[in-house]
């Protein structure tokens, strides 16, 4: 929040930002990157990749490694590579009194160990709440844990939102003519999901008890998004970190998100708690800790939001009409350039058809799916 304030202040004073591309010599590529945490009750999912250059970042998954969870009582649980670079095990139920670490053997034969970590237990999320301001909806998380103080929290979230295209097409072009769509063929309503891309952390270090009250976990803007045009759902996932884990995440946040103010903290090196067993100087990026995860879901309906102008993304859409003669229909619909929308009736009979471009009719073109998620109310 603080940084945004400074930036705003600057703009008022005539400040501006321009795109900048640095000419970096000798880019630092190929370092092992390990992300995830050991979840003792549920799914542990570890993503491994390699760092890349700065100019055109790409994700290079680290495939073919052997990854296992080790515990202080000698247990070891191998993780399997479900998708490329993603090593996981579902349905774990491990002893919370043990300490755990990750053992990695990459396919180039190098051996890595994370530092041992104790289990942090995430308390339930007490509530999710939200407020609407002129720029968007802010979502807050509230939790507490009377057993531990201080608490170091991290939240991530998955957003899912229902949206519609602007024209609800009832017609489809089939075999040179028009036919009514069945319910399953409708292109009007979609659901789309996204995962959080920012770091959300907070600690109760400065408080007298372990209470997080209305931490702003997400801001859903009105502008340039269709998230709030119908119904919106957010699943907030909470983990609890150890102090040094928290400090590492905070450092990553400072280095990568909280820059651009006039009082920037100077960036610092990002390492972690994973080390090459043979060469401790090798830089490995990532911090593997152990926690349980708790989560909570909340829905927000468009009708609950104050009637502010909400971006729809369909502002340039328009309908046109053509006659129903086969040649016209073929010209417009055969190649899929346009999609028929609905009949226009002349004296009780269809005489023309309205149509538009697919972007105004097929909601999937905005990235969503027609399949309603299981959790949807």
């Amino acid at each position: 929040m603080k940084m945004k304030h400074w930036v705003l202040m600057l703009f008022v004073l005539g400040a501006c930002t321009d795109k900048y591309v640095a000419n970096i010599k000798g880019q630092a590529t190929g370092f092992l990157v390990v992300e995830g945490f050991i979840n003792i009750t549920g799914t542990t999912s570890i993503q491994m990749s390699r760092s890349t250059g700065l100019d055109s970042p790409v994700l290079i998954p680290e495939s073919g490694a052997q990854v296992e969870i080790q515990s202080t009582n000698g247990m070891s649980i191998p993780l399997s590579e479900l998708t490329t670079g993603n090593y996981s095990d579902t349905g774990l139920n491990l002893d919370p009194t043990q300490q755990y670490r990750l053992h990695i053997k990459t396919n180039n034969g190098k051996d890595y160990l994370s530092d041992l970590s104790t289990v942090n237990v995430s308390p339930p999320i007490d509530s999710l709440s939200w407020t609407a301001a002129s720029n968007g909806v802010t979502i807050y998380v509230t939790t507490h844990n009377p057993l531990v103080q201080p608490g170091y929290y991290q939240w991530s979230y998955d957003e899912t939102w229902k949206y519609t295209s602007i024209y609800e097409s009832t017609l489809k072009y089939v075999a040179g003519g028009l036919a009514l769509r069945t319910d399953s063929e409708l292109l009007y309503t979609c659901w789309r999901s996204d995962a959080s891309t920012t770091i959300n952390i907070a600690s109760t270090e400065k408080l007298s008890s372990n209470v997080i009250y209305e931490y702003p976990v997400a801001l859903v803007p009105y502008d340039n998004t269709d998230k709030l045009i119908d119904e919106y759902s957010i699943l907030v996932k909470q983990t609890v970190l150890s102090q040094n884990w928290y400090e590492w995440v905070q450092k990553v946040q400072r280095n990568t998100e909280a820059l651009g103010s006039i009082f920037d903290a100077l960036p610092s090196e990002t390492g972690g708690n994973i080390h090459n067993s043979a060469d401790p100087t090798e830089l490995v990026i990532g911090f593997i800790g152990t926690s349980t995860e708790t989560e909570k879901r909340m829905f927000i309906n468009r009708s609950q939001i104050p009637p502010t102008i909400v971006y729809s993304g369909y502002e340039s859409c328009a309908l046109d009409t053509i006659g129903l003669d086969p040649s016209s229909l073929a010209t417009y619909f055969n190649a899929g350039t346009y999609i028929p929308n609905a009949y226009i009736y002349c004296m009780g009979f269809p005489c023309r058809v309205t149509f538009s471009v697919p972007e105004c009719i097929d909601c999937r073109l905005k990235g969503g799916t027609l399949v309603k998620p299981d959790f949807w109310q």
Partner: protein
Amino acid sequence: MGYSGRCLLLVILLGCLSTGLHAQKNAQNLITVTFHDAPIQELVEEIESQTDYFFYYDISLFDSLKFNFSVNREPLSTVLDRAFASTSFNYAIGPHDEVFLTKEALIQTNLTATLDSLKGKHRAYHVEIEEDQNQNTKTQIAALENKLYQIGVNSANNGSPNALITGYVRDAKTGESIAGASIYTDKPRVGVASDQYGYYAISLTKGRHILNIQSIGMKDTRRQILLSGDGKMNIDLQGQVMMLKNVIVSAEKLSNIRGVTMGVQKMDIKTLKQVPVVFGEADLLRVLLTLPGVKSVGEASTGLNVRGGSADQNLILFNDATIYNPSHFFGFFSAFNPDVVKSVELYKSSIPARYGGRLSSVLDITAREGNKKEFEGNAGIGLVTSRLEFEGPIVKDKTSFIIAGRTTYANWLLGLLPEQYKNSNASFYDLNLNVSHQIDKNNNLYLTAYTSGDKFNLNSDTTYGYGNMNLSLKWKHSFTDKLYGVFITGYDKYNYDISSTANPVNAFKLAFGINQSYLKAQFYYFLSPKHSLEFGLNSMYYVLQPGTYTPIGKESLVAADTVEKEQALESAVYLSDKFTITPQFVVEAGIRFSVYNYLGPQSVNQYPPDVPKSPDNVVDVKTYGANQFIKTYSGPEYRLSLRYEFTDNFSMKASYNTERQYIHVLSNTTAISPTDIWKLSDPNIVPEWGNQYSLGFYKNLKNNTIETSVEVYYKTMEHILDYKSGAVLLMNHHIETDVINTNGRAYGIEFLIKKATGKLNGWLSYTYSRVELKQADPYAGEIINNGNYYPSNYDQPNSATMVANYRVNHRFSISLNSTYTTGRPITLPTGSYFYYNSFRTLYSDRNAYRIPDYYRTDFSMNIDGNHKVHQKFHNSWTIGVYNVFGRHNPYSVYYVSQNGALNGYQLSIFGSAIPFINFNVRF
């Protein structure tokens, strides 16, 4: 006759007091001259050059008279009889070869006989000369300049060939003292400068001299003196208001050649006001940035980096009060109201022994004392601030005050913010009060009070506030003509707080504060013409509150936390001697011995030697009681400078000095930020130590109107505080675990060409300089850049500045200011990785890259209203454009993860041309 009659009377009286009673003029003074339409000056000069006679006359009375005659080997009386035949002019020849020229009146020169009997009893009597205070016209000035001042009483018993003249240099119009005026004689070449109280002392051989007096912004003048013994003479200088055509010689034209102090830059408020700055209000810190060797990390910061030093290594003194945060609005404005500033001196190389406690420089800001003769005021309105100033005598010619305030109405700027910030506000103010009181001729009192405040609040979320408060009382006492002392006591305070009430559970207030009380005694002793000494002692008691964190409101769960208060005592004694070996070769050598005591009550973490200081390595916590000496650091600091004058306008200077610093800023931001904290040296944090060698050559050209100089320096700095990656500086109970000692080195060469006077004036400077740091201590816990030297945040090798001012006519002048610097070093990412659903940057070596170079040009016009002296209001306008070319000068470049992608940006503080307008009225 009026005034001139009064002047003449004075001259007669002086003539009476002069003692030698040679009855008759020298018969050998025969004169051979030929005049064709010669004015009186030519006649006088010619006769004076051929004889021992010296003329006294009022030039204005003779301006229409032309001489046409010639004589061959005739005595003076014959020549003057010829000259004044058939005119109403008369002459009289005194016993000391004085010639008085008058119109109509005839002067009786033989009065002295009656006074002579008193002579023996008044040997020790010092004649004091107070000049007539209301001299304004040219003729009166000419009269002052042509008058012969008898100083001291000739004493047969006193065998010393020299005598000392002391006195004050003051502004004739306001009675304010003038600091830094140079007082010198041409033959022999002897010169001194007035100190900050306007006081000067010059030792000359007995006999006749012409004293030249010059000061920035004032008309040059001279005084003819006949020196018989020690005495006082106060000199009033006339302001240079309308002196467009008459500027003949430069003020202080020789000080750069003759001064012994190296690397000192002095500017008066007139110069400061000429340089265009953003928003148009004269800003002394911004103007200092145009000088060679002075840099800053960017436009949002007024933190000065002097010759590679960090911003906390500057001692900023405002009439002897230490200003800890010299900026408003988070660094956009300096905290000094231009209406109360008289002059600014920046010592960046040789630092006088009376100053200490900071490694890089001393910025000595002298405030005005106020008009001692009449009430006047100033008001100014600009885009962001307005100011009001009022001054005048409390007791005419004795006591004066000046009171001034500034405030901002920047809230309209915030009104341009998006709606959700409509509850935001920002404000700042500063207030000054100075009182100057002359108790008697040997005692002066000066009171300085200053307070400033800043408050900044965005949408009732987080409020930032900070303020300075300073109070100082100074007593200047002359013990004898040769010895005077200054005794200063005062109290300085700086504090800031941050509070937030947006979230009731987390509502907090964080406060930091530092205050210091001090006592200084400074003595100035003119031992002999060859030695002038300075000595003294000072002591400062610090109380530092590193942080208190408290809840706000009943719902707040914030746990109150306080970092233990720190106390320390810093004391020093010093002695320095300015030794004039020959008029050409002057050495100033000083030693300052400083002692620093870190005092209880305090709990101090103990760490074993040779392990990194970390919370895990604490072996013991020692607790000390109140005022217990916990740790003492002490050591000598050497100050040495010398000057050798090859010719009248070419000299060389060299200096060496060492400094110790016991209080440090802890910051992990590039710019000095309002949330930086200060930290006192303690057993775990050793004082900073630095030394500097410098050498310079100074040459004046074109009759001293153009000054040129080249200075080179090399300095080292030890135990500068740097921070570890991810350091926590606020509310840290074991701060020593988050900082590391760094060593640094800096070197550079500075070129300056300056033209101080004339229609076109200004300066041009170029600097090549480097500053590098090194952290290679394996026990520090973290080695930066593999222990190699790396450039510091403000290492900007090439830098060039041009400041030009052109006076088109009396009422209109234009100024242009151009600056170029190499971009400052920055730590850029060298790679990227994917984490938490976003590409993120990977950093490695610190400060391995640079932001793009900086180039900016500003333009301003000063338009004065008419110059009628007696009107009630004088107004002026300043109109200009900051960053004329609208260049997007980078303040920083950074990469940030946004919506999963990695974007690089260049941030410019002023991304367009910023026009400004200011209206000032003087009443």
